[in-house]
């Protein structure tokens, strides 16, 4: 119940994600700064810098999800544990792909934090709620990031990741006994 109160409080959530190094909803200040006019190489460089900033924000969220699924695994049982492990592996695949993209753009991929200050989770239900909260944040961030990415390949990758995160949400909601597909447009807002 304690965790449920936390998950429902937008201020607590925002504080948590900020402490986790996550600039919510895309973290696109660098993009806005990079939108000025210029020509040729300058535009390419600023576009790459903007892409790197957006992708590193996504990596921060993926690392937060990885830490949450890892920390929560001991509280999961049976089929939920199997799915939790599978989702953990998929978040790692996302982080790897995003890190590769950042490296290819000439940047340095964001690294996981040494520690994540998660709210206390005591039950499987708490873990599911925490995962659901992080997945929602990730969905909102990817949707915000999509039009800011300069290349079609990066946009397609982000679209395929956000759809995977939405699938995670459906399964998590099902495990929580809630409607699995509550809205026709998945916006990632809690």
């Amino acid at each position, binding site marked *: 119940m304690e965790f449920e109160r936390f998950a429902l409080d937008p201020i607590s959530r925002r504080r948590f994600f900020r402490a986790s190094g996550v600039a919510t909803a895309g973290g696109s200040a660098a993009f806005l700064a990079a939108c000025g006019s210029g020509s040729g190489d300058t535009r390419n460089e600023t576009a790459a810098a903007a892409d790197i900033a957006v992708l590193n924000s996504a990596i921060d969220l993926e690392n937060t999800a990885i830490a949450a699924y890892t920390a929560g695994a001991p509280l999961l049982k049976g089929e939920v544990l199997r799915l939790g492990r599978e989702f953990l592996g998929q978040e790692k695949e996302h982080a790897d792909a995003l890190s590769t993209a950042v490296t290819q753009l000439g940047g340095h991929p964001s690294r996981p934090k040494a520690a994540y200050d998660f709210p206390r989770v005591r039950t499987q239900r708490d873990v599911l709620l925490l995962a659901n909260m992080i997945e929602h944040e990730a969905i909102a961030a990817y949707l915000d990031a*999509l*039009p800011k990415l300069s290349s079609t390949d990066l946009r*397609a990758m982000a*679209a395929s990741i*956000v*759809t995977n995160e939405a699938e995670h949400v459906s399964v998590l909601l*099902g495990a929580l006994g809630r409607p699995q597909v509550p809205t*026709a*447009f*998945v916006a990632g807002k809690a």
Partner: protein
Amino acid sequence: MRDSGRLIIEDGDADTAAIAAYEATRRDAVRRGLAAGGAVIGAALVPALLSVRNAFAAAPQGDAAIVASAIRLENTAVAAYAAAVNSGVLTPQFRRTAVLFGRQEAAHAAALTAALRGLGGAPPAGTDAKLLSPLKRARSQRQVAQFAIELENMVVAAYFDASKKLQQGRLLQTTAQIMSNEGQHLAVLRQALGTDPVPNAFENGKAST
């Protein structure tokens, strides 16, 4: 170009060789019975796949053309779920799910229609009747679910390809929200069939189910 049995829809002109290869693979799968009960229904989706292919790969480039194609696809999905609801083979719980999914496809179509009008385009009418004919032959809930998975995979694949082409940021976000909803449909349908609900870290509608 194709990967494991599913056509990859890419930029440029329609590649009839790739389509033929896809059809051959499908027919081969049916012959060998690899896809069990859903094979016949899966094979019958090839005409719809062709229309998707034509819509997103060979259609004139531009946001309005892509949105118009998506509307037709959503209308087809609405009709498919309506046919599923009336198939007489669904349990009450699965029937409620089909009703919900159909309603959500209709919401997508309505939003896309509004977007298309905003672009100055006229929304297309009608559905792909050939797509729906296999549902008349469905004899079990399992077959209906397999049909729905094939359909949802195609829709997700179409939106995935659209994400590479759309120019307007707002449209890109709307279609990603819709693509995510279709992915959620897939997860629920896979669970209904007792298979892994989220088998791929990157959901592009092109991996095998």
